[in-house]
């Protein structure tokens, strides 16, 4: 079976006046229908840009400079803008981190949702409206009829987020990239949304890429996890393996910072030092200046390796070797 999405050696760089920002630098992963891939990692490490690259939505001065993005075996980096537009929002959808990337502030919600339905389905306006209405109900927006007539600024942060989710779900995509989709939702509504996407994955075989900082959500939702740091994937594996026995020191540091793993009121554990600027990455391992296990070997570039079956990492001293 071909994967729904396979990304091979993707590099997306921004050519700014201050220098080249290597936002995504040699990223590879693949995901099958019905599977959930949790994409986590440092803020600014390239998660959203990875999503934009798959969607063909990287704005200049950024470009995909290398690599292949195979959707059902077809390299979509080579598609014309017209063919891409037919896929986008239809077979491949993205819930953006900022819901206002989906929503137009001067148009009513109904106008926007009806347009989104009719862009890819030959239905009447009334049918489109009723589909929009049902979609709002699905994401837990009460009084959908009245709310359809509102403007985005009349919605709370979480309601805007849910409208963006509803639009992404309209056409039951084969691939859904969800970028921090539930940060503005209370846990009961979040559970409602997560149950809807689980249904989507089961019913339509949708492959989900779930980008989030909430490791507890990922723990309950994802099959596989990929951890990003400074434009690279530094660890992959099943959710259980990555969360229970992380191999990469960055992953371990990240999990240690979760508030529930710290004592109330005390200082939270944080990874020492600051994220290196993507403009001036030190040679070798990008985590080197912050890593407790760094040594001379780490001045070379670590390549992905598989120290234990089913779990990969980019590190010269994966944690399994330390404890074994």
């Amino acid at each position, binding site marked *: 079976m071909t994967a729904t999405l396979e990304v091979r050696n993707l590099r997306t760089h921004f050519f700014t006046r201050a220098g080249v920002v290597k936002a995504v630098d040699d990223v590879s992963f693949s995901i099958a229908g019905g599977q959930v891939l949790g994409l986590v990692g440092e803020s600014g490490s390239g998660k959203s840009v990875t999503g934009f690259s798959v969607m063909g939505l990287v704005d200049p001065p950024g470009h995909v400079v290398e690599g292949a993005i195979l959707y059902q075996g077809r390299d979509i980096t080579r598609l014309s803008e017209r063919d891409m537009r037919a896929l986008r929002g239809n077979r491949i959808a993205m819930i953006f981190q900022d819901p206002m990337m989906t929503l137009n502030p001067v148009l009513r919600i109904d106008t926007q949702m009806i347009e989104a339905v009719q862009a890819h389905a030959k239905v009447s306006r009334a049918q489109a409206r009723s589909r929009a209405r049902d979609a709002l109900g699905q994401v837990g927006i009460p009084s959908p009829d009245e709310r359809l007539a509102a403007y985005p600024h009349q919605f709370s942060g979480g309601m805007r987020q849910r409208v963006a989710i509803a639009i992404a779900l309209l056409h039951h995509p084969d691939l859904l990239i969800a970028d921090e989709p539930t940060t503005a939702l209370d846990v009961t509504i979040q559970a409602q949304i997560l149950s809807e996407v689980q249904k989507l994955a089961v019913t339509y075989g949708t492959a989900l890429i779930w980008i989030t900082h909430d490791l507890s959500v990922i723990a309950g939702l994802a099959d596989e996890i990929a951890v990003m740091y400074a434009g690279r994937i530094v660890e992959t594996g099943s959710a259980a393996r990555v969360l229970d026995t992380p191999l990469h020191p960055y992953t371990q540091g990240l*999990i240690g910072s*979760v508030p529930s793993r710290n004592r109330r009121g005390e200082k939270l554990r944080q990874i020492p030092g600051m994220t290196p600027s993507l403009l001036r990455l030190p040679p070798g391992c990008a985590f080197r200046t912050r890593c407790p296990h760094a040594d001379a070997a780490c001045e070379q570039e670590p390549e992905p390796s598989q120290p234990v079956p089913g779990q990969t990492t980019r590190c010269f001293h994966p944690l399994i070797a330390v404890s074994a």
Partner: protein
Amino acid sequence: MSAPIIELRGISKRFGPSYDAAARLGRSIARRLGTEQKNEIVQAVDRVDLSVASGEVVGLVGESGCGKSTIGRMVAGIMPPSEGSVLYKGQDIATLPPDRARDAKLKVQMIFQDPYASLNPRLRVEDIVGEAPLVHGLVKRADFATYLDAQLRRAGLDPAYRRRYPHQFSGGQRQRIGIARALAVQPEFLVCDEAVAALDVSIQAQILNLFMDLRRELDLTYLFISHDLGVVEHLSDRVLIMYLGRIVESAATEEVFSRPNHPYTQALLAEVPRIEARKRRFTAITGEIPSPLAPPSGCHFHPRCPHAMPRCVQEEPQLRDIAPGHRSACHLNDRL
């Protein structure tokens, strides 16, 4: 406890239909098409009382759309209440003389939930963060560069990015611009509206540790709005739970988390995702989600409440003491 720095007395906020040109046009078209909607009044906040002591951290939690950001905006003085008053150090901010009002506004800062919409896209980071401190004389021209560097670094931003525009940053980096901007004017009170939601847990820890340091060093006071109950539990002294415009429970943090009283609070705590869980099935909400456009009668939570009784449909439960310092608004407490 010291005197309240911020006090809300019976504040309500209603939103009518908007009257900007686009909305008017939309409505007139809707009228012609005969699709005009009836009720357009949202009761976003409904008679809320709240008092925050100097140096206190109050957590504000609740359903999406229940009015938390609206309360935050009223506290920060950037949105007037429809009813009731907001007191800053015992004085109604609506009646302060202009210079004192300006001072109060500077001392109460808000970190906005939506970092992108709250940053002027045409300004560079150095102006977004540095302008207000310069204008208000908090820093001299000569010291500006050093001051700005320190402000950016403190929020976990590389000062090398100072000449960038907001769209050139990731979501979490934008959020840190908002944090740096709010802290740069040396406030006394900080409204944090989902202020760390877009940060990875390590940078989040860095920012939360910074908040706790500032509290210890400068007696900074916080209204901390968040959906992340783990963060709220870690940071807050006291927690308020809101549902559809009303406060339904308030108590010391440990009390709320160990003995939640209100059925909505109990539902929230039951759904908190745990990092220990693996591949679980998430459950949809049972019952109908009530709308602030047509709030249910009596207790707003009754359409979703597993314990609802006939009385809950008719009578609004009052927020009252159920234990020292613990208040809840639920009729079940009458049977005790």
